[in-house]
């Protein structure tokens, strides 16, 4: 307990940054992933191909390499300079979006084809058929895998510690510098993660109950 209380500044800053990484990456990944999933079911072959290529390339690359690229490779391209936190958010978003896209796409496949036909039959164009009829039902069908993706994202934020972002994954190193026992520090970090994931799971249960689609 002393390790935690005497170093609460480290824990608070660390987890605050973890939550910042998580929150922004989750929102960007959700938006981007949904767009990519929509492209993958689009009637335009070029859009389908682009989205499939993106998912396959980024999902098959280790997260560390994706973050390496944004932290170390990107600045050399001479584009708009970004700080490490922004780089981590971009990397995590692009990486997680591929998993979101696959979850949403599997959800789209659970929606009976008659739903899309009925939407088209009343004159809705493709985009509205997707956003008003298909996606709302698809999301409801994939809440559990979607939350698995976000739980993985929450834990993946610790990889950013390796790229000079001071988040929860970096707490141990800083504790060691202060001469605190590393194992105790790690256990506290793990406990806070478990609590955070627990909160996410509770949210998941709530959404599942609220959004049950009866057929």
């Amino acid at each position: 307990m002393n390790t935690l209380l005497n170093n609460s500044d480290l824990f608070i800053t660390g987890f605050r940054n973890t939550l910042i990484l998580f929150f922004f990456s989750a929102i960007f990944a959700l938006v981007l992933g949904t767009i990519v999933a929509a492209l993958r079911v689009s009637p335009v072959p070029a859009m389908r191909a682009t989205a499939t290529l993106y998912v396959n390339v980024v999902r098959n690359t280790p997260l560390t390499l994706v973050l390496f690229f944004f932290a170390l490779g990107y600045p050399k391209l001479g584009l708009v300079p970004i700080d490490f936190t922004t780089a981590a958010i971009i990397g995590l978003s692009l990486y997680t979006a591929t998993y979101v896209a696959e979850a949403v796409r599997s959800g789209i496949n659970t929606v009976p084809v008659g739903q899309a036909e009925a939407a088209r039959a009343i004159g809705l164009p493709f985009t509205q058929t997707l956003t008003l009829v298909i996606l709302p039902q698809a999301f409801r069908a994939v809440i559990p895998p979607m939350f698995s993706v976000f739980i993985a994202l929450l834990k993946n934020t610790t990889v950013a510690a390796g790229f000079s972002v001071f988040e929860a994954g970096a707490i141990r190193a800083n504790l060691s510098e202060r001469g605190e026992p590393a194992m105790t520090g790690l256990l506290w970090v793990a406990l806070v993660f478990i609590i955070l994931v627990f909160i996410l799971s509770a949210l998941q249960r709530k959404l599942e109950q609220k959004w049950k689609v009866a057929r």
Partner: protein
Amino acid sequence: MTTHVPGDALVSLNAVNKHYGQLHVLKDINLQVRKGEVVVVIGPSGSGKSTLCRAINRLETIEGGTITIDGKVLPEEGKELAKLRADVGMVFQSFNLFAHKTILENVTLGPIKVKGASKAEAEKEAMALLERVGVGQQAPKLPAQLSGGQQQRVAIARALAMKPKVMLFDEPTSALDPEMINEVLDVMVQLAKEGMTMIVVTHEMGFARKAADRVVFMADGQIVEDETPEEFFTNPKSDRAKDFLSKLLTH
């Protein structure tokens, strides 16, 4: 606006062809449906009657020939097609009500999103339509809470809310329990009496006798007979039709 000379073809199919792989499912189909006409399409399963119905609002693509609705050739894709579909009401065998939306929302979605109606105006008209098909009480419920017959009547109201020029019915009673078939047919008969142009694929011979102006009999992807109901049921000309009708009466 195109004005109508009585007797003008509202829906016109000319030399329409379609294959599913090797299967020639629509063979040189020619069919004209005038404004206000009720055409019932019957035939054995696999005869292409559902495909024909679905081709009219391009839920099925066609390979040859043309389909025109109110003088306009059916566009291939995009906004123009969506616009034309709004003028063609469709009722499906499996109802296909939007499962995540209430009954009322199912009926107002099209008018609000496609026709740009205000929410209040759309809800007022939707309630009137739901009352008309006898399910006004169900407005706040979700589709799964309704019986099949009720769902199908909502589906008819949803199509009518778009004020379509023609209504397509693709086996609207085939997925219903026997005691619910009549409540749906009653709504359809009423609609026919009010002068709605209808193309109905069905196995309900009673409906064909009662409400149809013409019966189109299809077999093997072709239109074999196109007669008045009286003539078709009492004096079928082709062997295929005679055979089909005799099988209906055995049990």
